């Protein structure tokens, strides 16, 4: 009997003691996705700025990434609405990619929502961090499962050499009626988007893109990084009212220019 009581007592103490030990042990810094990369990501990108985890920043990927070189991703901060003066900036990062930063998006006059495809090197949290104009960060994220390897093999146009004849060509189309109160712009820029992590192929990727109107005003601005998929196809939402004609301008990290007309 004594022995049984001792065991019960020890068990009870263990249970009481467990909670504080656990909290001290949480090396994810309170990350709802439980990722130990989160504290360093936060330090690197958000520094000491105020942040909170928020469902208002939706990150949508398939539960399993069937093609790790082209993982469909939609980030949507529209639910933040006018909170904090509206979304100023959206950063997308992948915790476990060898290159973690995917893009930085300034919606400007477009809506704070964006879809594109990315590469995944292994299963990882994928995060969108939205900063509102009051300085507050709102962080959403999701786990994407993957067999992996998407960052370290050459893309199709690199493997067959076809990228040379299509480099920086632009296709665009504006669709109506996809979402209330906006026009959808889908843009494709032909580019190998080499990560620099496939043997013998240096990093070669589009660094920045922006959509400008005839008066030179930017409607959105995008900084891209290596994990964006080859020949990126990007989807934006523009206000229903506004110019019918724009230019898409930008350049890659070798200084090649992108400049094309985009019109309805």
């Amino acid at each position, binding site marked *: 009997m004594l022995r049984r009581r001792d065991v019960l007592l020890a068990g009870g103490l263990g249970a009481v003691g467990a909670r504080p030990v656990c909290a001290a042990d949480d090396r994810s810094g309170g990350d709802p996705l439980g990722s130990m990369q989160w504290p360093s990501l936060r330090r690197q990108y958000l520094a000491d700025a105020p942040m909170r985890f928020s469902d208002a920043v939706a990150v949508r990927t398939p539960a399993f990434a*069937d093609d790790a070189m*082209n993982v*469909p991703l939609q980030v949507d901060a529209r639910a933040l609405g006018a909170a904090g003066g509206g979304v100023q900036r959206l950063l997308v990062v992948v915790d476990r990619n060898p290159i973690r930063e995917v893009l930085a998006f300034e919606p400007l006059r477009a809506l704070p929502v964006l879809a594109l*495809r990315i590469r995944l090197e292994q299963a990882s949290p994928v995060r969108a961090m939205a900063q509102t104009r009051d300085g507050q960060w709102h962080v959403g994220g999701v786990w994407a499962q993957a*067999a992996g390897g998407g960052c370290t093999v050459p893309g199709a146009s690199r493997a067959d050499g076809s990228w040379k004849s299509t480099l920086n060509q632009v*296709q665009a*189309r504006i669709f109506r009626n996809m979402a209330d109160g906006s026009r959808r712009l*889908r843009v494709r820029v032909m580019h190998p988007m080499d990560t620099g992590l496939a043997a013998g192929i240096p990093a070669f990727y589009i660094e920045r893109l922006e959509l400008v109107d005839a008066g030179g005003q930017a409607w959105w601005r995008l900084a891209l990084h290596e994990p964006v998929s080859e020949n990126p196809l990007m989807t934006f939402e523009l206000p229903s009212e506004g110019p019918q004609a724009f230019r898409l301008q930008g350049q890659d990290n070798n200084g090649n220019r992108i400049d094309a007309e985009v019109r309805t």
Partner: protein
Amino acid sequence: MRAAAAWLLLAALAQGAQADVQADARAGAAAPRADAQTLDYRLQPRRIAEHTWVIEGAVEDFSRANGCNIINTAFIATGEGVVVVNTGPSRLYGEQQRRAIARVTAEPVRQVFNLNLHPDYFLGNQAWGDKPTQALAGSIAGMQAEGAAYEDNLYRLCGDWMRGTRATPARGALQPQTLRLGRHVLELRRLHGHTGDDLVLIDTHTGVLFAGGLVFAERVPTTPHADPAAWLASLDTLEQWRAQGQFRLVVPSHGPVHEGGRGIAQTRDWLQWLAALMRDSAEQGVDLSELLRAPVPERFAGWAALPAELNRSLTQWYPRQEQQALDRRDRR
């Protein structure tokens, strides 16, 4: 191009943990569960016609729980030797299949057929090294080209079940022909669409069609090597043969054995629905990430391998439709 093609291939055979859970809930009632402790698939031949048995796999996606045994294999004891249809996903499956057949019939096995190039159709060939293993020429070329990738991928998905498995392509290239064995008349015919070379076998004596991957029943079709237009044409051909009375019982590789044209109609319905969904969505400007979350119609909702198999097909095919929607803008 090779790298990208390999990716699609691996992706097509890959799967997510979530899909597992959903598939388990729908586990086939007929097939006993594999035992992962003893690596025993618990293969149980079930007689479906005179001299004819199937060994039913789980109506699910590949998983550790089912040992990657999701295929229906079959055999016919013709009186002039046993004909085996497909050899399962692993060396282990082939060995256990041999023993299961020997428990049912004392007749020696004379021929082994692989109906197409997919891993669960032929990875058991290793256990049949002393028998003639045969497939259509295009299937053999595919087995040779992709066998190593299949091994890797199934190891990743199913672990120990795959131990010691080495892809062993069929050795003999088969021509379409009629085989008369005992009282059985076996029509071996080439169709295509599910893969580049789809072998179907009709036993006109018993009226059984071994449809391979051309017909799925209550299970989402797999598409990594598919050509939808050719597949639909092949389904029309099969339906014609059925209407002519060439067969009445259908053994699909995935899904329950059934009478009549149900599986043919279901497979056609799915392929046509999927094609229309992708075409319409692309024209509206829907992004792949959105389409992957689109609901499936009620009539498909109970099928096995959802959403995993649908996601693979959309990932494989929809980007081309998106590109074509941009090309149409350029032509305006």
